[in-house]
């Protein structure tokens, strides 16, 4: 029977099976195996998520990801609010890069109401700027953070300081440091302040310096190399099977980037090529992210150089208090720092969305993929593997 939602019948034999790996007969009463719960509250776990590990000595033989500690029903909350009220809620669905949620909500409503063509040019460039700044601040924490999982904490301190400088720029541009609430249906909420580009350039120069130092600190570090090389290897065959996206896919040579594959905003006007590597291990993924750090700094410079000097920031839209969007559905995606990040949005002609569903990369990365990659790993490497997949529990359970 043809699945009425998908329009075709999926071949279930090709989907990863959760039961296959748990089938290993682990007799806990033999005292050969031991259960360790990592999380839900553990300083090494990103967000509130638990990994149930079955270990044999120092080696993980089985792993199971548990989520549900963080569920706040954000999708449902958005479904009970007006279209314009959605974005302050949506940003909580991913703290690491909140701007991506704002962009998705705004674009979904614009597409379904037919206002996507009305978004002013200036607003598009500013949206791109804020999205790339969000990627940059994420990478400033993420790249050295990978070193942190191998007890190399210094890079994190450097990175967090520089990230704070980017948050300063966010504060100037958007009025807030973390939850920016900047991209709104129809446009954005503010022009560049005077002198913004100069201050940004100062920060980018600091980051240029940081990029060189972190290369020496991490990638030339023998401990980092020894531990990260060959660990948690993702092969190109796994990419489609698990639905791996972003830097995790690019780390094994599968060049996937929504900005290139399906350009949105003005990404087709920027000159860039997503970096890749071939090894697919933690070292390769971190290396790809380090290259992406360079690229993001370059993209921000390109955006600031190419954006218009002035212009409208918001389209003329219907009154937000009784804005009704005709019946329709859409899926909008973008390339977040963690990979393809999308939102499925259904409207039914009323003033509130019928269904909002966020598709974050962490759902597959932190559950299906992580559970498999952990098998055979050292207990000491569990955090490193988890962090290398850039798991973000808030986006798994919205």
């Amino acid at each position, binding site marked *: 029977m043809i699945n009425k939602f998908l329009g075709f019948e999926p071949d279930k034999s090709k989907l990863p099976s959760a039961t296959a790996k748990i089938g290993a007969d682990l007799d806990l009463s033999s005292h050969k195996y031991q259960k360790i719960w990592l999380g839900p509250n553990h300083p090494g776990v990103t967000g509130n998520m638990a990994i149930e590990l079955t270990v044999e000595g120092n080696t993980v033989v089985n792993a199971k990801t548990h989520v549900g500690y963080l569920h706040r029903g954000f999708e449902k909350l958005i479904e009970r*609010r*007006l279209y*314009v*009220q959605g*974005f*302050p*809620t949506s940003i909580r669905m991913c703290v690491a890069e909140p701007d991506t949620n704002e962009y998705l909500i705004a674009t979904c409503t614009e597409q379904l109401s037919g206002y996507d063509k009305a978004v002013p040019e200036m607003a598009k460039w500013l949206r791109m700027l804020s999205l790339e700044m969000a990627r940059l601040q994420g990478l400033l924490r993420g790249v050295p953070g990978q070193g942190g999982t191998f007890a190399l904490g*210094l890079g994190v301190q*450097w990175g967090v*300081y520089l990230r704070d400088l980017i948050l*300063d720029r966010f*504060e*100037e*541009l*958007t*009025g*807030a440091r973390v*939850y920016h*609430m900047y991209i709104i249906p129809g*446009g954005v*909420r*503010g*022009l560049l*302040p005077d002198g913004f580009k100069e201050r940004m350039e100062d920060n980018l120069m600091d980051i240029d310096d940081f990029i060189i*130092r972190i290369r*020496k*600190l991490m990638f*030339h570090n023998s401990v980092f190399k020894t531990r990260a090389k060959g660990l948690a290897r993702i092969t190109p065959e796994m990419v489609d099977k698990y639905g791996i996206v972003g830097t995790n896919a690019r780390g094994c040579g599968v060049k996937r980037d929504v900005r290139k594959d399906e350009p949105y905003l003005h990404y087709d006007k920027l000159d860039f090529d997503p970096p890749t590597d071939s090894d697919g291990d933690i070292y390769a993924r971190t290396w790809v992210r380090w290259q992406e750090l360079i690229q993001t700094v370059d993209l921000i410079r390109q955006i600031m150089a190419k954006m218009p000097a002035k212009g*409208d*920031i*918001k389209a*003329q839209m*219907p*009154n*937000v*208090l*009784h804005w009704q969007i005709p019946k329709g559905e859409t899926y909008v995606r973008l390339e977040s720092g963690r990979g393809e990040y999308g939102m499925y949005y259904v409207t039914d002609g009323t003033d509130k969305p019928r269904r909002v569903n966020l598709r974050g990369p962490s759902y597959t990365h932190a559950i299906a993929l992580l559970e498999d990659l952990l098998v055979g790993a050292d207990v000491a490497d569990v955090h490193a593997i988890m962090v290398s997949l850039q798991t973000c529990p808030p986006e798994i359970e919205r």
Partner: protein
Amino acid sequence: MPFTAWSKIVKDPVTIKDPLNREAAPRYRGFHDNDVDECIGCGTCEAICENEAIDLVPVDGIETKDGDSGLRPKIDYGRCCWCALCVDICTTNSLRLTNEYTWVDTDPDNFRFVPGVDEKDWYEKEDGWRKPVPNYHFYGQERVEMEELPAEARGDSFIEFVKGYSKDQAQQEADRCVECGICIGTCPAHMGIPEYIKTIRNDDMEEGLKILYDTNPLPEICGRICTHKCEDVCSVGINGDPLSIRWLKRYIADQVPSEQYHEILDTQKIFKGDTKIAILGSGPAGLSTAYYLSLLGHNVTIFEKLEKAGGMMRYGIPEYRLPYDQIDKDVDYILSLGVEIKYNTDVDAKMFKKLESDFDAVFISTGLHAGRSTRIPGSDHKHVFQSIDLLRQITAGEEIMVPEKVVIIGGGNVAMDITRSMARLQKIKYGKVQTLATSLESEEEMPADREEVVEAREEGAIIDPGWGPKEIEIVDGKIKGLHVVKVLSVFDEDHRFNPKFDEDNKKFFDADMVVESIGQAPDLSYISDELKEKLELGPRGRYLLNEYNQTSVEWLFAGGDIVVGPDVIHGIADGHKAAVGIDNFLHNKKK
């Protein structure tokens, strides 16, 4: 590279030594401040707050008045997420977020406060989040223009020149409403304005008509000539054009054919009791009282002096503003509810005494049909007319004098009505317009609606305000013109009418005919002296009325222009009150 980790050891620390005193960015979304004098308590901040963190609360020292709900937003920082949507939608731009970002307090109740009223440290901070640059709006700022016949096409005819909204235009205009309801409080009849505007957005005209008739039985008329106090206070109008509430009302009424009224308004069958009420005058107050009384089951008889119903709406307002068929639509529906009307019946003192015995209650709304004279030399000439008489004659189809040059004295809406009517008649007769209107008040002070002045000028009339009439020059029994002197001021310091003139600055307006339009007076000669003695007087020499428009003689109620106004909507509001008052009175009498 073993020394990389040491590379910053000689650098200064990057941490800020005193983070609490770090100045936030100029655009930072910190804590709320509200300019309570600017704020009108419209509550759009409350409506858009996604966390329901805002409540509108009464505040000491702020009174409820026209255009101000008397309430101010109270913010609950246990719920607020500092998204600043409240600031972005604020109709008055009074609400803002300062860039203060630290606040330490030991009392949790303090975190629910009324910005701008409760004392906080950060109000002096100038920076913070305000509504972004121009062209950033959450609702339409510009009114959908009402299409009108151009001056060339309307100048020589009495055809209605305002075309009315199309469906798209009406819905676009209705979309701008923020549903604050400030207008409801100001409308004398307290019409459910946001509710009926909503029915336009939902394209549900039947529901719209029901809402209109809840509070106003003359929607076609009010949809055209209402003085729209609601639009003066519309919160959308503070930083943009106010909503065209009047035209939207007209749109609803225009959409429903009169044949469907009984079905939609569920008035096919009304139970009538044995009570009888007499109403004097079929103007807005009389008709409105008759409408609500018949819905309450009373038998109503209206006594109308003239040939047709409508009072000043028919005999005062020219046809180009309010076509007669639209008056008929509203009036006929009210009469179809079983209201009896006696035309051409001039009630005198003797007949009025009879009404007292024949009816259970009497409502008088005979309006202001006597013109006031300037009493300047020459004003007793036979070619000096009262505007109200001329307008009545035009409606009745009587022949009136239309000379080549006319001067009108007066700056109100009635003066504009006669100016524009005379201009039309001149255009028809001579092909050119030589009508001039002059008033004591200056251009800015003129009581007439601005659009009336503008349109009169478009139609070729000259409006020359700021002159005081001194004498009508008469040579050989014929009017030559009007002598005027410059007005320095119309009102004194106490805002009392006390015009001052510059006697040296003179002017002369050529005219063959002068029309006086400086106000009207009531004619209450039907009230006998005996009854007059029983009636207590209130302020300004008017009869004292209670909250139900009841006089001190309990069977006598009064309303309309003789009590308040003059305009239609106040008359309708009197109808509400009097109908309830009469119903209560009769109910208590039965007991």
